[in-house]
């Protein structure tokens, strides 16, 4: 039970989730599921960062009770990175969803292969 994979369980989980999301984004034919995959992938990175920034037994890095000692708080940088990353992934998700709506209105399908095929036919016609 003391293998590195088990000791660093949170990191292992987040990398597995990253892999699942990545594969979904790459291989799934349905656009909505691709976008879900992208979100799983991004969230896995945030989980990884959050886990890495957490130090057991310390507090959220907000000075509340006048405790100025650095060793009382966890590392605030990863939390900042996660916040920035969430903003980025929200905007890319919004853009991809907007594009998906456009494509669905035009071709009536969410299947990427079918959309590409119909776009080619449309051009030939």
């Amino acid at each position, binding site marked *: 039970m003391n293998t590195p994979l088990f000791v660093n369980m949170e990191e292992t989980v987040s990398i597995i989730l990253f892999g699942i999301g990545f594969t979904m984004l790459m291989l799934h034919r349905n656009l909505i599921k*691709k976008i879900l995959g*992208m979100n799983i992938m991004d969230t896995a990175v945030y989980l990884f960062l959050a886990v890495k920034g957490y130090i057991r037994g310390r507090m959220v890095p907000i000075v509340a009770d006048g405790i100025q000692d650095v060793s009382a708080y966890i590392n605030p940088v990863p939390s900042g990175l996660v916040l920035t990353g969430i903003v980025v992934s929200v*905007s890319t998700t919004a853009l991809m969803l907007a*594009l998906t709506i456009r494509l669905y209105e035009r071709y009536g399908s969410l299947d990427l292969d079918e959309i*590409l095929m119909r776009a080619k036919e449309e051009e030939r016609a």
Partner: protein
Amino acid sequence: MSLVQNFPFFSIILAMFSGILSSVLDGKKARNVSLAAIVMTTVMSAAVLHFCVRTGQSYTYMMGHFPAPWGNEIRAGVLEGQTAVLFGVVMFLAVVGGMDHTAMDVEESKQNLFYIMIDLMLSSLLALIYTNDLFTAYVFVEINTIAGCGLIMIRQIGRSLSSAIRYMIMSQLGSGLFLIGLSLLYDVTGHLLMSPAKEAVAAIEAAGLYEVPMLVIMAVVSVGLAIKSGLYPFHYWIPDTYGYATPTASAVLSGLVSKGYIFLLIKIFYRVLGRENVIASQIVNVLFVFGLAGMLMGSVHAILERDTRRMIAYSSVAQIGYIYMGIGLGTQAGMVAALFHMFTHSATKALLFISAVGLYEVSGDRKDFRSLQGSGYRNPLAGIGFAVGSLSMVGFPMLSGFISKLLFATSALQSPHKMLPTVIALAISTILNAVYFLRLVITLYTIPEAENAAGKGNDKRQRVFVAAKGQGEASAFPASSRKLRLAIVSFILLNLVLGLCSQPIVNQIGNGLTMFE
């Protein structure tokens, strides 16, 4: 601190704010704001370049109130200055040259959105060039992707929408890998600024710790950025994307966007991971093999293609292969060759896309390259521009493509194990390039047979002109505008400058790379 040292920051902010300003302006004003922003940032970058060449060193610029290991930084040196100036010039000419087509392809009410995307693209490219912070680089990579997607999908036809979603999917795969690579690197080193991260990496390597994580980081970051710049096995989004966007967007995407990622990759190799570590990890060999494959397969696909724009797009795949091959050689000379080829390709590919516009104008907007027969006579300047671009890509002396091929070949001589494959691939790829580019150029200057038989006068050219006038309705443009001509002439001059005055540029690239370390 002198005023010039503020310029990198000013230029990024200026480009970004002109984008924000454009959102409340109409199309024409937004266009002028955008052009003014490009000119001003280019002038500022030139001043930065001059400053760095004069003082002979690079400098870092503190952003905000926190000093080095915590705060955010901008770094400017000779190489950054050079790249920013060249990108600015190419972008300006691409916007000017494609202006009329942009006005036609994009709906009236959405014109300003196109120029917002151009402004955001400019600001993110400048930020990628100048930043000294890894996470800032990630954020601007995403801004770049979103702006690129906007530039593709603003032309609302089915093919450009479907290629935009493909572009987004591939880009997101690349960004995801890049992001996890950065997170791992932050874990291992505890830094996001490039200079302290490099020290930490050096300490880790010296202690022999974290061998597997470091290898994973290098692999993931390289593959992520390679996907985004369209290295061979990840290239399948390129032809549709470049082939169906408006001309300005195609020129900007092929000439600049992919180069921004390559520049970032080189910067990370030199300034974070350390060149020796990257070479020791064999990652460069992988890039080298895929670069070679791209050089050959890109050209083969281009030969099989019938649509001119897609042909030029596949040629981009081959040229990106050249650049990665140069990086893969692993030597300083190889890196210089890769960077010089990056400049060459920016200038030449934009020239090809813009002069193809001039040729389409006089031939009706049909896909097959045979429809361009004789168009070199109907629009002489665009024909010359296209011929110059093609010859430069093939590697004709005096033009910049020749210099980059020469640099690749000479740098290959320095790495004995990779010399033979490099030289052979260069030779084959040059022949393949010649096959499709010269076929195009010959098509431009061939009189269509039907008209040849039907004509009665003696002067062949006269007949073609008359024939062209007869089918004038096929094209929406009476003649190519002055802007397009200006852009083509300037691009040809840029190519000649890169080809004829290459030595100082190459010296400065070497200089800039030394400053990186």
